[in-house]
């Protein structure tokens, strides 16, 4: 089984296929669209892309033939009574395996959608739209974006979402209601109230697929782990990481104690730390971190959707300067170069 990298960029979608020891870059797909995130649905092989345009707004495209032909969502928008309009589509998460036609979609301004017809039509999540804390949410540099959607493989009713800058929210009832899940995570940019109920600038949240009560979070203000499904968080970034700041996050499905981050200098200088592109790994649940240096020197940046992992421990990162790197068995290889600025990377296997 070889790896297929699905790479979303500011200017189109790219597929990079592994064939033997070679990476093969295919012709661009969806030219003219900004792809904030794209993913291959492991349930049926459909390819989904969060497609955005300055002119034509945000939507979702679906292909059932790996990009040869596309369908666009027919109904996607916010209800008029909300007073909000959909600004962009950001992250698409295939639903629970027991719900084969269900998809989740995060977007701006801090909104979540669910589709039960494989993306043809979408319903806005009312619980988030009218959440009692919404007036305390504030947009980050990328907008008020719902960018993380983590599902519990063992419980179709449980999901977590991450919104910048509102924080992490957990649902135990399939999205009928959401509760803030930010205890212990800092909002370091709010000096008068650094541990609020909501308002944290979460950059990425992932649930470990084999131990989903264990969550990992790269935040504007630190790297965190939760072992109780988000009820509390422990900060992990003072044991070998050069900076608490970063966006990208990856896990190892075979080992819940493993995680990867790519630290950046800080909020005011968003380039990789120490003038190099270092992918930092912990193998002890965040007690210590050690880097694998992909490029030195480098002042790169990997965005929140820009790192992914496969089932065999491989990690893949795409930079805003258009390079894609693969980290496997401690070795880094270059999978692509000179792409448009990379916004997302997802690793899949294909036959």
């Amino acid at each position, binding site marked *: 089984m070889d790896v297929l990298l699905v790479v979303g960029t500011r200017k189109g979608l790219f597929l990079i296929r592994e064939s033997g020891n070679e990476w093969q870059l295919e012709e661009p797909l969806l030219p*003219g*669209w900004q792809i904030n995130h794209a993913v291959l649905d492991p349930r049926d092989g459909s390819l989904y892309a969060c497609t955005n*345009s*300055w*002119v*034509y*707004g945000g*939507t979702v495209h679906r292909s059932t033939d790996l990009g040869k032909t596309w369908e*666009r*969502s*027919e*109904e*996607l*928008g*916010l209800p*008029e009574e909300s007073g909000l*309009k*959909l600004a962009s589509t950001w992250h698409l998460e295939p639903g629970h395996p027991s719900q084969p036609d269900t998809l989740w979609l995060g977007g701006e301004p801090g909104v979540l959608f669910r589709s039960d017809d494989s993306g043809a039509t979408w319903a806005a999540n009312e619980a988030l739209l009218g959440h009692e804390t919404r007036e305390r949410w504030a947009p980050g540099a990328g907008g008020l974006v719902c960018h993380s959607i983590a599902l519990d493989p063992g419980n179709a009713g449980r999901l977590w979402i991450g919104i910048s800058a509102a924080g992490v929210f957990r649902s135990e009832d399939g999205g009928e209601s959401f509760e803030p899940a930010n205890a212990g995570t800092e909002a370091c940019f709010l000096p008068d109230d650094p541990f609020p109920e909501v308002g944290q600038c979460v950059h990425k949240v992932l649930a470990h697929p084999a131990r989903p009560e264990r969550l990992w979070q790269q935040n504007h203000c630190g790297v965190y782990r939760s072992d109780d499904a988000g009820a509390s968080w422990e900060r992990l970034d003072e044991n070998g990481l050069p900076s608490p700041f970063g966006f990208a996050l990856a896990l190892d499905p075979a080992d819940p104690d493993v995680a990867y981050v790519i630290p950046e200098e800080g909020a005011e200088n968003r380039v990789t730390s120490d003038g190099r592109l270092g992918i930092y790994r912990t193998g002890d649940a965040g007690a210590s971190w050690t880097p694998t240096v992909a490029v030195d020197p480098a002042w790169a940046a990997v965005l929140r959707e820009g790192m992914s992992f496969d089932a065999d421990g491989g990690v893949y990162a795409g930079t805003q300067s258009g390079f894609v790197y693969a980290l496997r068995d401690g070795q880094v290889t270059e999978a692509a170069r000179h792409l448009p600025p990379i916004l997302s990377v997802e690793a899949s296997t294909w036959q």
Partner: protein
Amino acid sequence: MAVVLLPGLLATEAGGQKRFELEVETVGAALHALPVANLLLDEAGAVRPLVHVYVNGERERDLAAPLPPGACVRIVAAIAGG
């Protein structure tokens, strides 16, 4: 009948068709009749800010504006982006 002309990306989204002949009476009806209506109009039915509609060479902002017989409606994407 009105003729509607689409720019490249919209024509791709319309299955490769860039010219439509429509039996419609208003600008709004013309936009709604296109297979790319949800790219031209937002969820509230308003024309997206960077979508410009020209009728016989004149910018038209009113969706209720009537289309004269044989009108040529051209959709133009405003200059934006980078």
